[in-house]
């Protein structure tokens, strides 16, 4: 049995992508098992591996962890990406909460009708530029440091970079009013572990397409409509 963490999810971003980012940023190699058929999922369910019958599931350090937030917190703490004390941790949790909410709007995007997609795209850009990006822009401007919290690379930086890139995929010039974030993006992207993750051939997953949506619906029997925000 390998000592590497093993990720169980679809071959696509979804809720697992933030976990891939964080492991990569921590320099941790991991394996993946991709769910492609309903059968595979039912087998996983029957084996009792999914505590609440859901994926993501990550086998790590002898645990079968579920719940994205729990998994991310564990990885962040284990690899010293969670600040040096309770107050830094609180800041990181707040910042990650914000980028999590923002990425949540993007998570549902592939499952929307074409018409709703346009509405949602506008919604995402509006929230990014009026609610979320200004906060991080100000944090960086106020302390003038390279990283969001405690002058040290943390989970908050990884999560923000992930969010920035995802929003840029919806509107490529979305950072035009945010000079601090532009510099932040360049800086964090050039950290060796992140640079590697951003290169072709890494385990980073592409923008979800129709095939991904089809797979998720088929495996989870998730045939209902999802509404835009």
């Amino acid at each position, binding site marked *: 049995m390998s000592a590497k963490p093993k990720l169980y999810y679809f071959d696509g971003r979804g809720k697992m992508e933030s976990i891939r980012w964080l492991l990569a940023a921590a320099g941790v190699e991991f394996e993946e098992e991709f769910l492609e058929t309903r059968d595979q999922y039912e087998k996983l369910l029957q084996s009792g591996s999914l505590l*609440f019958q859901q994926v993501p599931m990550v086998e790590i*350090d002898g645990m079968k962890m579920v*719940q994205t937030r*729990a998994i991310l*917190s564990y990885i962040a*703490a284990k690899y010293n990406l969670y600040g040096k004390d309770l107050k830094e941790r609180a800041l990181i*949790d*707040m910042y990650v*909460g914000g980028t999590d909410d923002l990425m949540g709007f993007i998570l549902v995007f592939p499952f929307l009708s074409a018409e709703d997609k346009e509405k949602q795209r506008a919604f995402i850009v509006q929230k990014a530029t009026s609610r979320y990006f200004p906060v991080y822009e100000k944090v960086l401007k106020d302390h003038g440091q390279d990283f969001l919290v405690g002058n040290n690379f943390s989970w908050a930086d990884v999560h923000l970079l992930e969010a920035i890139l995802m929003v840029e995929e919806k509107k490529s010039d979305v950072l035009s009013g945010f000079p601090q974030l532009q510099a932040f993006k360049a800086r964090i992207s050039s950290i060796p572990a992140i640079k590697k993750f951003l290169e072709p051939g890494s385990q980073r997953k592409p923008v979800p397409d129709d095939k991904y949506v089809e797979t998720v619906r088929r495996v989870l029997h998730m045939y209902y409509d999802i509404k835009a925000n």
Partner: protein
Amino acid sequence: MSGKPRLTYLNGRGRMEPIRWLLAAAGVEFEEVYLETKEQYDKLIKDGSLLFQQVPLVEIDGMKMVQTRAIMNYIATKYNLCGKDLKERALIDMYVEGISDLMQMILMFPFSPPDAKEKNLESIKERATSRYFPVFEKVLKQHGQDFLVGNKFSWADVQLMEAILAVEEKVPAVLSGFPQLQVFKTKMSNMPTIKKFLQPGSPRKPPPDAHYVETVLKVFKK
């Protein structure tokens, strides 16, 4: 200025209620400011108090904390309710997140359109009895201890207790297939800080009613 944490939210459960539970369980007294008008909310935003323009807001230890999970994490850690090591914390986090998914359904329930209410109630019942309660029933049965994790009272126990009571309000006999959870509920009810929180006159808020829904829609109107 008081040293007590100060909570800013509507006068009702919503996303603040798990925070009230956790502070109460930890034996921490707190103050509350209730949002009743849009003007109050707009002023809070203008003052720069709300990092992402949202409540809950908890002023604690010199910080203006937002984001429910961040606030809960801080309180749980500060008051030693999150396990003794990383692995116990991982278990607590998993349990808390699962319960939170269930509570989210209950949170949204008062805002569902009238023709969807019956279906949503069925969903809550189905999820509680087939996805969430069986997990905790099994955890308690397997280790035979009083608390969910590490034989010690933790955040997970508080959240589970809150969830049990919230589901029971909607589905009164919901614990009938879960003997371990029945015992758990009784034990938790008898813990001094929780017992106090369950008494009339405590900061615990009643189930959301039409007035609460109306206030939410009014205060957060775009």
